[in-house]
């Protein structure tokens, strides 16, 4: 069989494209088996199967008790204070009962009960919608249950913000750095154009510390491994009445709220 120059070039071109394509496919298949972190963990790190929290609002008597929690998180994580709701970035804050649990609103409940503040943050869902929709794996689920953000990979498409039913995600509408009150040099700051949210204090867990909000909560937030039946968190959830936000949506939030009797409510 003889081929002319034109045919040869055609075949050569097609084989180059196919060759490059299949190499890329093989490489990406290989890559998916790799772990994001390849360094050995700190021996002090608490081994975890599923990050979880129980928030007991009865333990927060005053506004200051709650503010301490927000401040503890936002200060160490360089969360900027942009001073207006349009640009707002927040990792942990409070909402009224009715806003936190919209399906549990009740016209005959006391006004006071509906207006009670609840601490809200990322739920680190077991079946997170945000992770499902992210086109770059910039937000992903870690083996310890934390829904993590890679702010260097995020392209800022904000699909995750549309997907999250809990309003847990914020976007950097402008450069956040000038709005950080006092920069914590131990934790990265963010750039404009990326999404951010609570990262479960992965950096503290890695060195054996509890999340900052838990530490500042004075026992108001119980933190632990939801997969460990002997943990305090499991015992609490097993013995008392708890609520999760919007469980009907099937995202399986890992943040529980204690709803007690009169004195605990």
């Amino acid at each position: 069989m003889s081929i002319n120059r034109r045919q040869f070039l055609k075949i050569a071109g097609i084989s180059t494209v196919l060759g490059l394509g299949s190499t890329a496919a093989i490489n990406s298949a290989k890559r998916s088996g790799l772990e994001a972190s390849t360094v050995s963990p700190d021996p002090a790190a608490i081994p975890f199967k599923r990050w979880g929290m129980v928030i007991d609002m009865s333990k927060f008597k005053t506004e200051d008790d709650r503010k301490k929690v927000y401040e503890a998180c936002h200060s160490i994580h360089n969360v900027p204070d942009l001073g207006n709701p349009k640009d707002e970035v927040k990792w942990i804050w409070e909402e009224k009962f009715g806003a936190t649990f919209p399906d549990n609103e009740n016209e005959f409940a006391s006004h006071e009960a509906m207006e009670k503040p609840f601490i809200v943050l990322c739920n680190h869902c077991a079946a997170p919608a945000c992770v499902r929709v992210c086109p770059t794996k910039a937000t992903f689920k870690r083996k310890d249950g934390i829904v993590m953000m890679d702010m260097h990979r995020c392209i800022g498409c904000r699909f995750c913000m549309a997907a999250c039913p809990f309003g847990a995600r914020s976007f950097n509408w402008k450069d956040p750095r000038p709005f950080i009150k006092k920069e914590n040099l131990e934790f990265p700051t963010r750039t404009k154009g990326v999404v951010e949210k609570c990262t479960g204090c992965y950096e503290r867990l890695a060195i054996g510390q509890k999340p900052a909000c838990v530490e500042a909560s004075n026992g108001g937030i119980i933190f632990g491994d939801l997969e460990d039946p002997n943990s305090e968190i499991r015992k609490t959830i097993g013995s008392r009445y708890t609520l999760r936000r919007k469980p009907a949506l099937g995202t399986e939030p890992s943040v529980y709220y204690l709803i007690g009797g009169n004195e605990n409510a």
Partner: protein
Amino acid sequence: MLEKALVGSKKYWAWIFLLLGIAGVGTIAYLYQFIYGLGVTGLSRDVSWGFYIAQFTFLVGVAASAVMLVIPFYLHNYKQFGKIVILGEFLAISSVLMCILFIFVDLGQPMRVMNVMLHPTPNSVMFWDMIVLLGYLGINVLVGWTTLGAERKAVAPPKWIKPFVYLSIPWAASIHTVTAFLYAGLPGRHLWLTAIMAARFLSSAFASGPALLILLCLIVRKVSKFDPGKEAIQSLAKIVTYAMIINVFFFLLEIFTAFYSNIPGHMHPLKYLFVGLEGHTRLVPFMWTAVVLAFLGIGLLLFPATRKNEGTLAIAVLSVFVAAWIDKGMGLVVGGFIPNPFEKVVEYSPTLPELLITVGVYAIGFLVLTVLYKVAIAVKEDTAGLEIPH
């Protein structure tokens, strides 16, 4: 063939430079957004997608509508569409191009856009949307250019192009289905969480796209010697009529489910759009304008007398087009975010830079469209009167 776009009347060049000027203003506005961040828009953490993504969503529909010419012409040998099928394909090219640009200007970190390919993520609908949009662009460039090239030489298009033509049919449906899936699979956004979303997108697409094509055909006939043909335009008008009626019907189905079930989450966004929620009524006048235009358009199209009169036909298809644009280009995306996950109403309206960037992208799209149409029409004028097999 592109050289044909370099020869034109004074009016042609004035139009080209006008579009270039608008695109230039848009580019400057984009540079401002690029430097400052997306904070120059009216978006917030509550309404995190707005005008850009809405235009993208609307234009995917316009792009998909080329199939309404391809099916009758290639599958049913409806010869009247032979003259204008290229106009549909070229409209698809410029629409997909605008779609890609609208996604690009909406990105917070546009320099990282290639991450979508570097880290392919099949569980993300956006990944598939990228694939179907790029594929559709490729198919239409290939088919459009090849068939027009053959027409220029007054020969039948090569046989190998046929599989691509047939592929373009399901592919057109796929671009709008996948785009609907961007919305329809999200928990907690009640306006979007509806199985009929893709069907609604397709019906709205097959109304608005051919409506725009009719307007373009009427313009082409005015500014050139090429006549798309009265019968072809009338057939398109019938397609618009059916599609728009189905589109309105599908929308009424949504209203029924939301309000008869009486589920508050499903009713809230619709109430926000049509009567306002908690005193917030920013979109209400627009939505009712869309309602009036939709029924006006359908009315004019239904009566043969007003459909056959090209003056009233133009009003009808313009009404349909604007109604579909308000529905998808304004109401659908923003309405999905209202109320927010805390049941609070936070409203949105685009800012001046946002509008300039939007108009700039449209200018680029129309520039590409003008150049492509110029080439196509020049070829048509050259080969007028010749019977070319397909």
